């Protein structure tokens, strides 16, 4: 009975990723979309937050189309993060039991 969380705002600008991770269970998945994908880069001021989450077992994904749009597809992403496309996004919503959208 797992939950998919989506986050669409940059963690450098808003608290929504932090709030999201603070209530994620170990079997949760988190998908970064829209401006939130910038949080997926390596070596940023929010990388530790994401690493702590994945260490607990939380799976973190980022939407490739949004990464590409922002010119970041050649930048190294955190090893802990898995890229998906829109069809992968749809699949994540079906593989989990509910969707919590942090707006």
């Amino acid at each position, binding site marked *: 009975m797992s939950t998919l969380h989506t986050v669409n705002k940059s963690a450098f600008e808003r608290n*929504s990723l932090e709030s999201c991770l603070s209530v994620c269970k170990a079997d949760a998945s988190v998908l970064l979309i829209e401006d939130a994908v910038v949080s997926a880069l390596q070596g940023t001021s929010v990388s530790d937050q994401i690493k702590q989450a994945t260490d607990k077992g939380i799976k973190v994904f980022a939407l490739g189309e949004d990464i590409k749009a922002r010119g970041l597809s050649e930048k190294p992403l955190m090893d802990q993060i898995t890229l998906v496309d829109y069809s992968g996004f749809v699949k994540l919503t079906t593989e989990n039991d*509910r969707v*919590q959208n*942090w707006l």
Partner: protein
Amino acid sequence: MSNTKTFVYINRKAPYGTVYALESLEVVLIGAAFEQNVKLVFMDDGVFQLTNAQDPEGIGMKNFSKTYAALGDYDINQIYIDQQSLDDRGLTIDDLQALVYEDEDDDWNEKSSIHLVNREQLSDIIDSADVLLNF
């Protein structure tokens, strides 16, 4: 009961700065007619939605905060407030409205609808949802 689902509303924004608090309340009230299992969560700046003594006359808006007191009459009595969000904002539960309902299973005694919760309990509430609505 096959069509009864658990609806969890997550309220995270301060009132008046955006319309989300007001338009969330409108959904909750309309939704009450569907007789689902409803839980309301107030976290992050959403805790400001329940402050006492709101008075938006000076900014030209109407005060909708009194409507929260009516939630109990709509059988909406599972209201969860994130303790950490209060702490971070220098608030205590006494700064918020006391929301109550009359318990029909206990001789209509008046009881508090409000439950203070921590983040672990919040994650249980989220995982208890069939449908999550975010405002």
